[in-house]
């Protein structure tokens, strides 16, 4: 065969195109079909959308970078299911935007933490001062969350975006009901209240059901 590769080696534009073609094969075969598979696009039947309070807690979770130390993804390995609970399936996370799977476990996985026999009281004390309860812990303390009230100004918009852009099945009445609570019983909720509500909601969709 003639020295055809010289053609590629001497033409950087062509080389870039061919490299892109070469590396796209993996994604084309492994990722693209997932966009059309039921298992990855359909929620499990017990999934319910976050309440406004849980959504606010989720925002705090993201803002404080909890996902940097905590995963929300139990893999199908015995050691993990023994410790954390049932392994995570894709249908649990179809309404997660962005998903919070994380990639590093400095602390334990939290995908099922709402199912663990841990009291709300413990969560609060632990967030204020982890080392008061777990002396070995290197988790940062978040004492200000108990004093900061939730900033509700963007919540109506957030819920609308989740409804309209992300296809989360909030009905208009749902959003109204949530916003009524935001104006009522949750008006003075602290960020700690919201975060703890979010933590306690994690895993609830899998309380009884195994897919």
């Amino acid at each position, binding site marked *: *065969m003639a020295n055809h590769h010289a053609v590629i080696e001497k033409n950087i534009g062509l080389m870039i195109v061919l490299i892109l073609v070469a590396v796209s094969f993996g994604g084309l075969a492994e990722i693209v079909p997932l966009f059309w*598979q039921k298992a990855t696009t359909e929620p499990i039947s017990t999934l319910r959308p976050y309440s406004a309070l849980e959504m606010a807690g989720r925002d705090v979770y993201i803002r404080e970078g909890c996902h940097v130390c905590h995963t929300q993804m139990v893999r*199908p390995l*015995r050691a993990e*299911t023994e*410790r954390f609970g049932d392994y995570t399936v894709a249908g649990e996370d179809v309404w997660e935007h962005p998903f919070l799977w994380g990639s590093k476990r400095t602390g334990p996985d939290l995908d099922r933490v709402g199912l663990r026999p841990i009291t709300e*009281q413990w969560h609060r004390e*632990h967030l204020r001062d982890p080392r*008061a309860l777990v002396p070995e812990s290197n988790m940062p303390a978040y004492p200000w969350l108990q004093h900061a009230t939730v900033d509700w100004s963007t919540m109506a918009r957030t819920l609308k975006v989740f409804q309209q852009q992300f296809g989360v099945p909030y009905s208009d009445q749902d959003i109204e009901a949530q916003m009524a609570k935001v104006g009522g019983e949750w008006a003075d909720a602290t960020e700690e209240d919201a975060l703890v509500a979010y933590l306690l909601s994690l895993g609830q969709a899998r309380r009884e059901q195994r897919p």
Partner: protein
Amino acid sequence: MSDFWSFYIIAIVVLNLVGCAFLLFANLRMTPEETRSETTGHSFDGIQERNQPLPRWWLYLFVLTLLFSVVYLVLYPGLGRFGGLLNWSSVSQWQEEVAWVNKQTEPLFEQFAKVPIEELHAYPETRDVGGRLFANNCALCHGSDARGAKGYPNLTDDDWLYGGSAEAILTSIRDGRHGQMPPMAAAVGGTDQAVRDMALYVQSLSRPAIKDKPEVAASVERAAPRFAVCAACHGQDARGNQALGAPNLTDGVWLHGARLEDIETTIREGRSSRMPPHESVLSEERLHVLAAYVYGLSQP
């Protein structure tokens, strides 16, 4: 997976392999003119690039990777809907792993279940198995050394809120506990001074020496008759009531702290401490081993 996507994936995977093989073999052969010359004709600062074929072993490695992928695709999932001859999936692997471990551990747990907690605690296995169960389920509240934290009782001492018998411990773990004391400020007189008097009285029960100070002695004297409202739960002698989980106030062991402020807070605001039930998360056999582990912690 639909026919279309299955075919789509198979097509890409096969195309990829064939393409790799083609590139490899197409580049093996050299033109006669290339074969003749010793160099590629490239020259940098007078340094000539030699023209050598790939070493054979290197080539065979390439071929080996191609063969490997073919064998892999026959045995494991990779070609669309075809699941591979081994029928492997990450879920089936997990199920096998769980079944395998259960097969090893079930007989052990069954054996343990037959031994009464009062004997089981001395088995070395109890320390291993129970210790792991404890680390996983209980350490976050009671501490990895089981010595507790403020509001979470120490399980290694001989001081029990609900009793240290095997039965009481098992009940605590399985069904949970909820220790409640209502706010008592009003009942002791309502004023800050009255609360302080009562706190000093409670403190003096385990540290009589503080009464050496005359002003403390006066406080204690004022509070003593009012302790009647506490006695309903903590007992006339203040030695507690295990049916209610009301702590013994005379032993110097404190659940919510030994400082005067801690005791005042308890009296003013009351307390509500929950030990969650573990019945739904741990099997009866595991609860048995855990109870034996906890029982053993305070045995000499």
